[in-house]
């Protein structure tokens, strides 16, 4: 049974026995959509990990004799213009999406966090300079910036990932900076500074724990966005390149070209993208409900 919250102060550590995980479990119990979103994410992770076991066919093997065949028992999602099994391609596509999401959000979060920590902790001129650079990057819409970066680096999955990471950095740095600025107001940080603790120790022991919740919330929401941007880039032809089965690429190449004869080619990859993004968005909402007391009431 979950232990009830006893602390009422926003931002203070919660009652003993109910750490972050405890709060998350409580939030999940209250919110069936949260459980569903966690389920979607687990399902996606399992599908991506065991793609070679789950996929009924080779995603790259063409079978021209059954090209553009409608969904059937043998091919539940139908086949594409050169007879590749769409279900297997969608399953393998989850690997690309999750991989890009994981690395892009990982890099974007770590770099954004470092910049935010430095900016918020030391403030002053360095802070102002770093934040102006972040403003400048943010002034360019994410997708356009990613497009420009990918075109410079040449289109590929890895470069799409790097571009997405760069798009993520400014927003993250700003959120971390805000959290650091408010964490610095805590008495224990002042006390640690007065005792002459080294900066690194103060940051790691006293500030970082305050910053982790907002980072995880925003990372979860960015994960969905990263999948979306990768799919958009691939859709526009500058992300993952054929014949790799990326969801966005499947939509743009076969999905659009054969939409009148074979609408399933447009339906299933899009459904996969939507489901994945939905899962991460809802999970981000659940995390926020669990960890951000200010937003809990407004739901």
């Amino acid at each position, binding site marked *: 049974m979950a232990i009830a919250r006893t602390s009422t102060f926003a931002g203070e550590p919660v009652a003993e026995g109910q750490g972050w995980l405890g709060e998350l479990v409580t939030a999940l119990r209250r919110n069936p959509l949260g459980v569903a979103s966690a389920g979607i994410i687990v399902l996606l992770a399992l599908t991506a990990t065991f793609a070679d076991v789950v996929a009924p066919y080779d995603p790259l093997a063409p079978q021209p004799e059954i090209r553009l065949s409608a969904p059937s028992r043998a091919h539940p999602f139908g086949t594409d213009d050169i007879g590749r099994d769409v279900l297997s391609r969608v399953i393998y596509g989850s690997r690309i999406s999750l991989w890009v999401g994981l690395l892009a959000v990982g890099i974007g979060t770590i770099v954004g966090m470092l910049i935010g920590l430095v900016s918020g902790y030391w403030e002053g001129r360095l802070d102002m300079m770093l934040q102006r*650079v972040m403003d400048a990057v943010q002034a*360019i819409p*994410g997708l356009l910036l990613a497009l420009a970066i990918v075109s410079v680096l040449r289109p590929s999955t890895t470069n799409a990932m790097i571009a997405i990471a760069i798009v993520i950095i400014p927003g993250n740095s700003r959120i971390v900076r805000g959290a650091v600025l408010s964490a610095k107001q805590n008495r224990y940080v002042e006390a640690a500074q007065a005792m002459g603790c080294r900066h690194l120790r103060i940051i790691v022991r006293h500030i970082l724990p305050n910053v982790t919740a907002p980072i995880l919330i925003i990372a979860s929401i960015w994960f969905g966005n990263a999948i979306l941007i990768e799919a958009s880039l691939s859709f526009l032809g500058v992300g993952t390149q054929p014949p790799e089965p990326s969801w966005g690429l499947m939509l743009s190449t076969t999905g659009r070209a054969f939409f009148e004869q074979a609408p399933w080619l447009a339906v299933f990859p899009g459904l996969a993208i*939507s489901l994945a993004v939905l899962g991460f968005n809802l999970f981000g909402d659940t995390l926020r409900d669990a960890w951000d007391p200010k937003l809990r009431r407004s739901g």
Partner: protein
Amino acid sequence: MYKYVLRRLLLAVPVLLLSSLIVFGLMRVMPGDALTALMAESGNVGEKELAKLRRDLQLDRPYVEQYALWLWQMVSFRPGDSIFTGEPIATSLKKSIPVTLELATLALILGLVIAVPIGILSATRQNTPADYAGRVVAVSGLSLPDFWLGTLVITFAAIWFRWIPSIGYVSFWESPTRNLQQFLLPAAVLGFRLSAATMRMTRSTVLEVLREDYVRTARAKGLEGRIVVYKHALKNALIPVVTIVGGQLGTLLAGTVIVETIFALPGMGRLTVEAILFRDYPVVQTNVMLVAGALVSLNLMVDLMYAWLDPRIRYH
């Protein structure tokens, strides 16, 4: 107020200069610059022609000089010519900006028309089936990629209604009906995506405002529920909604890139994507900078709108 506007304008200058440096830098990092791509396109181009082209495009000058020249071109509204088509960029922008503006405005209007009423309905009927339905619409708007929605709309419009997006663009002044036929579906796709966040924000702020004391007072003196919501609650509830809409202008502009590509609308988004694919760097850097400039000024306008909406806010 004037001081605030002036300070914000002055702050925008270094941000835009930095953005221009980033864009300029990016374009110069291109491995194998635009000319190599051009050579591959047109077959055999000799060293002599290449050198002449470099000179014509001023690619042989030092970077600082190229940057200064580009800045001057941008400021004086003469952004040079496209490498590929040879057309002056100003001319192609003159054709494409109205398309994007119309698409974005229509999408914004449609987005608000979808979002605000559903958000209010969701909040005033909290935890009823109407609320759940509204929230599902909102979350799906956030999760359905616009390029998928666009593809599906085209697919099923073609299968069911035999409707195919027309190739040639017709301006509103030429034929309003044909123009709207072209724009309504893409704007709806884009507007639906925008409506999601606005809807969620409207719902949560209306919920919050409905719990305020002055709303309770209004109710206590016997005002009808509808008047309480529309006359007392809504104005305050809409202030954060303006923030959300302002924050989404970037998404809106990025969305036009995708939607224009899918629906074959000759707007700025499509122009930029094509320029990126062809490595037509003068066009790319000009367009990206224009978008950044538009975004910075729009955000300033959004900030100023708060003061108009909420007299409690004063700028210093």
